[in-house]
C-alpha cells in the first residue's frame, strides 16, 4: 500500500491574512517617547515655577539680568504654530486624494520650523551679548536648559521631517511613518507655547 501524500499547494492560493496591528508600531513608539518628554518638560517647568515663586520680593528676576524678549519671540512662536498647521494640512492631503500636494505643505512646515530654530539661535546670541549665560544667574540656567532642551527636540524633529519629505518625494513614505513624524512635530509645536508663557513672561 502506498503512502498518501498531499500534492504541493497549487499556485494562486489565498494566503492567510495578516491582521493589521491595533496601532502602528512607529506611532506607538513615538507616542511613548513623547509621553516621557512631556514629563521631562513638566519637571523643568515645575522647578522653574517653584524657584520663581519662592524667590524673595525683588529677587526675581535676578538683579542685573537682561529682560527676556517676550514681544520679539511672539513672531517665532507664531511661525512654529503655523508650521504645525501646515503639517496638519499635509497629513490630510497625504491621506486624501491629492498626496502630491502634501509635499508642498510639508516643505512649508519644514521652512517655518527652520525659521523658528534660526530665530531662537539669533535671540540667544543677543542675550549672551547682554550678559545672560548658563552660569550668570538662576534665570540664565533655567532659560538655557529649558529653551535649549526644546531647541534640541526641534532640531531632531526637523531632521525627521526632512527625511520624511525626501521619502515622500521618492514615493517611499508610509502612512505610519509619516504619522509618527507628525506626532513628534505636534509635540514640539504644542509644548512651546507653554514654555514661552512660563519662562518669558
Amino acid at each position: 500500500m502506498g503512502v498518501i501524500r498531499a500534492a504541493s499547494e497549487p499556485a494562486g492560493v489565498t494566503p492567510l491574512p495578516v491582521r493589521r496591528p491595533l496601532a502602528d508600531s512607529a506611532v506607538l513608539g513615538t507616542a511613548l517617547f513623547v509621553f516621557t518628554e512631556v514629563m521631562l518638560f513638566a519637571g523643568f517647568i515645575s522647578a522653574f515655577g517653584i524657584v520663581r515663586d519662592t524667590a524673595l520680593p525683588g529677587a526675581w528676576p535676578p538683579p542685573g539680568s537682561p529682560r527676556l524678549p517676550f514681544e520679539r519671540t511672539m513672531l517665532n512662536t507664531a511661525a512654529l504654530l503655523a508650521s504645525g498647521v501646515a503639517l496638519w494640512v499635509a497629513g490630510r492631503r497625504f491621506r486624501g486624494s491629492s498626496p502630491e500636494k502634501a509635499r508642498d505643505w510639508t516643505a512649508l512646515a519644514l521652512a517655518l520650523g527652520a525659521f523658528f530654530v534660526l530665530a531662537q539661535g539669533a535671540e540667544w546670541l543677543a542675550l549672551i551679548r547682554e550678559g545672560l549665560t548658563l552660569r550668570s544667574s538662576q534665570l540664565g540656567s533655567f532659560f538655557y536648559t529649558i529653551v535649549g532642551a526644546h531647541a534640541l527636540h526641534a532640531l531632531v524633529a526637523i531632521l525627521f521631517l526632512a527625511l520624511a519629505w525626501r521619502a515622500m518625494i521618492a514615493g517611499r513614505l508610509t502612512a505610519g511613518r509619516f504619522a509618527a513624524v507628525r506626532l513628534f512635530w505636534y509635540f514640539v509645536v504644542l509644548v512651546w507655547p507653554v514654555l514661552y508663557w512660563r519662562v518669558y513672561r
Partner: protein
Amino acid sequence: MSPALATALIVACPTLAHACASCTGGDGPRAQAAFFGATVFMTLLPLGLIGAGILWLKRGGREWLAREFEDRDAWTPPERASTATPDQTPATPSPAARP
C-alpha cells in the same frame, strides 16, 4: 508610639508630623501655593496622559475588533489535491524488510 499610629498621624496631619519641610514650612503662602500647584500638576499630568492613551487605544480597538471577522470571512482555504501512488517508496520499511 506604634508604627500604625505614627503612619495614621503622618497621613492625617502632615503639618503636625512635619512630613514635608519644603511644602509646609515654606516662606509664606506664595511658596506653599507654588509647591502645592507643582505637586498637583506633576501628579495629574501623567494620569491624564495615561488616560488619554487608554482612550485612544480603546477607540482604535473598537474599530479594530469590528474588522476582525472581515479578514476571516474574506479568506478562502486552499484546495488540497491528495494523490495516492502505490509504487512510491513507503515512509517506513515493512517489517519483512528489516534485518
